[in-house]
């Protein structure tokens, strides 16, 4: 039972991070390797807003989430906008460089110490028990946020006007632009949403157990989940996260905890050999990259 809960929590973490990769990749074919850093930035922003809105944890959290959304937009406007239509490698490297920059800046501002936003906000993290298993409050919140994020993204992309435009831009950017869709607006929206979901993941993980500047590595570990499911499919990301998380949790419990580090990447290689575009990815696009 506890194993099921563990899988659920880990899968939610990976899924919430992975949907950030998917959102950006789906509309602009850019792989954002700075996603882990942007996620960490969200957690640091909580530290900043916590000191600003003393005694109002909800306000501080809302402010941090809003700031992450804005920073995602800023990243697009000042950086990625210029990379539109450039080589794949150049765009990926720009995000890598952005990641390096963010990491340097947060160390400069907040030092490299272990940080506890929950303490700064003055909120606690009690353990809830469901039957025989237990889950911490913030982990439960994370599962909830992941579920509602995916639900609203599905609805948004399926029925929302802007969601439809996003899908159109992903399918054929040139045609979409010629039909009057503001591509820059769409891309900026994708970056905003992606940073927002990433920051939510970062904030909730940090509230659960604190964080260090090491956090981006977790962002990287969530990447296999996105790829296994198919880089341009949200449903795929959800399933991929579930597969990777189950593999990890079960291997830790039944085989060797050390394997958990390489297993996501082994799954990834297996997937690349068998079906490179992922479980639900679009096949044709492999040739377009």
């Amino acid at each position, binding site marked *: 039972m506890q194993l099921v809960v563990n899988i659920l929590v880990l899968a939610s973490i990976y899924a919430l991070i992975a949907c950030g990769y998917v959102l950006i990749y789906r509309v602009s074919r850019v792989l954002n390797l700075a996603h882990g850093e942007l996620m960490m930035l969200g957690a640091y922003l909580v530290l900043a807003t916590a000191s600003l809105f003393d005694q109002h944890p909800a306000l501080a959290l809302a402010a941090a989430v809003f700031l992450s959304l804005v920073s995602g937009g800023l990243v697009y406007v000042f950086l990625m906008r210029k990379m539109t239509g450039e080589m794949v490698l150049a765009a990926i490297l720009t995000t890598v460089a952005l990641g390096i920059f963010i990491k340097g800046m947060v160390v400069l501002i907040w030092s490299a110490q272990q940080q506890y936003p929950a303490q700064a906000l003055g909120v606690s993290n009690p353990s809830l028990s469901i039957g025989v298993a237990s889950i911490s409050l913030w982990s439960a919140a994370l599962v909830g946020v992941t579920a509602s994020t995916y639900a609203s993204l599905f609805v948004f992309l399926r029925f929302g006007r802007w969601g439809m435009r996003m899908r159109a831009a992903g399918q054929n950017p040139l045609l979409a632009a010629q039909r009057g869709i503001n591509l820059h607006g769409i891309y900026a929206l994708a970056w905003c949403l992606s940073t927002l979901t990433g920051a939510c993941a970062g904030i909730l993980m940090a509230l659960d157990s604190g964080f260090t500047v090491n956090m981006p590595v*977790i962002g990287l570990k969530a990447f296999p989940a996105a790829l296994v499911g198919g880089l341009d499919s949200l449903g795929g990301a959800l399933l991929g996260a579930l597969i990777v998380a189950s593999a990890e949790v079960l291997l830790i419990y039944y085989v060797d905890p050390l394997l958990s580090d390489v297993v996501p990447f082994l799954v990834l290689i297996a997937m690349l050999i068998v079906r490179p575009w992922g479980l639900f990815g679009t096949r044709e696009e492999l040739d377009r990259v």
Partner: protein
Amino acid sequence: MFKKTLLGTILASALGLPAVAQDAYVIGLTGALTGPPSSTYAPAVEGLRIYIDRVNASGGVNGKPIKLILEDDGAQPSKAAANTKKLITQDKAVLLVNASLSSTYAPMVAESKNAQVPLLFASGVCPQSVYPPADPLQFCTTGYAANYDSQAALDFVKANAKGAVKIGFAAMAIPLSRGEIDHAESLSKTMGMTPVDKEVIPPPTADYTPFATKLKDAGPNWVYSWAPWVTQVRTFEALRKLGWKDAMIAWAHLESETELPRLKDDRFYVIGANALFQDDLPVHKEIIEAAKKADSKYPPTMMTEGWIGGMAIEAALKAAGWPADAARIRNAMETMKLDTKGLRGSVIEWTKDNHFRTRLDYRVYRWDSAKSSIVRVQDWKSYAVK
């Protein structure tokens, strides 16, 4: 060769390279000031720097200032190697200090050996080569020491456990921590305990609960961890979240004094070689004051290791006199006795073949919710080093 050297010298002087004329003791330090593990090392380096600044402000050593040159290696071995080379060849450091991850030791030792410059480990774990028989060039002041730590921790467990001990272990997936936990596991068997489970946890881990689940299901009534602080405390927190009620003992890293009040758990013990600020010694007040004056971004409670390193440097230079070259400092260090003013249980004494210390003492602390403060549960317990 001679001709080449001569030519080189002439060219160097022609090109106007800086001539070497120093009126200060030059100490070169390379440390993990950035990079993933820097949270353990950067505060120690800060403490060391503040200590040396204080020495300089009060007139230096033997009337000469200490010039401390800090280099960052980001815990990367190749950067540490380049830094060491620079410190030796360009800055002409007469004493090297390492405050970084153990992976930087090999390149640094190689460089120090080449140039015959003594090397002090001042916040990374002490390498095997400072224990008897010690390498002539390597010295160590760091509190934690492989094998002895586990011995002391398990002794404490044995003394405090009621009934049979079923012990679980947690290590980080880095060679050092894994090696020590393996040692502790075999040690526990000889001490009549039953090791039930051992978790080796990779450093970047999103969720510790899966590991903790396995550990808890093995049913230990004690857990011992000797790993970087993150792994120790996150394993413990995950265990508590799962409803595990028994006791855990872990190494008292720099962070413990700020972390115990956060955890507020009466059954989380930390064992360490440094006196915590809770003991409120005069030297602690000194550190707090100096840190405040330096406007440091790290809490003073995390500076003890660096402070002791600074004390050792000052004492070594004082004993070596002026002018001092690398060889004289090394000779002075070999017979040095360092009074840590109570930060450690006994005097740090180096001898010709022991560059670690002759005695090693441990204190154990925990949080006491009744008193709402950290309390000491075991005073200095002394171990002789071979």
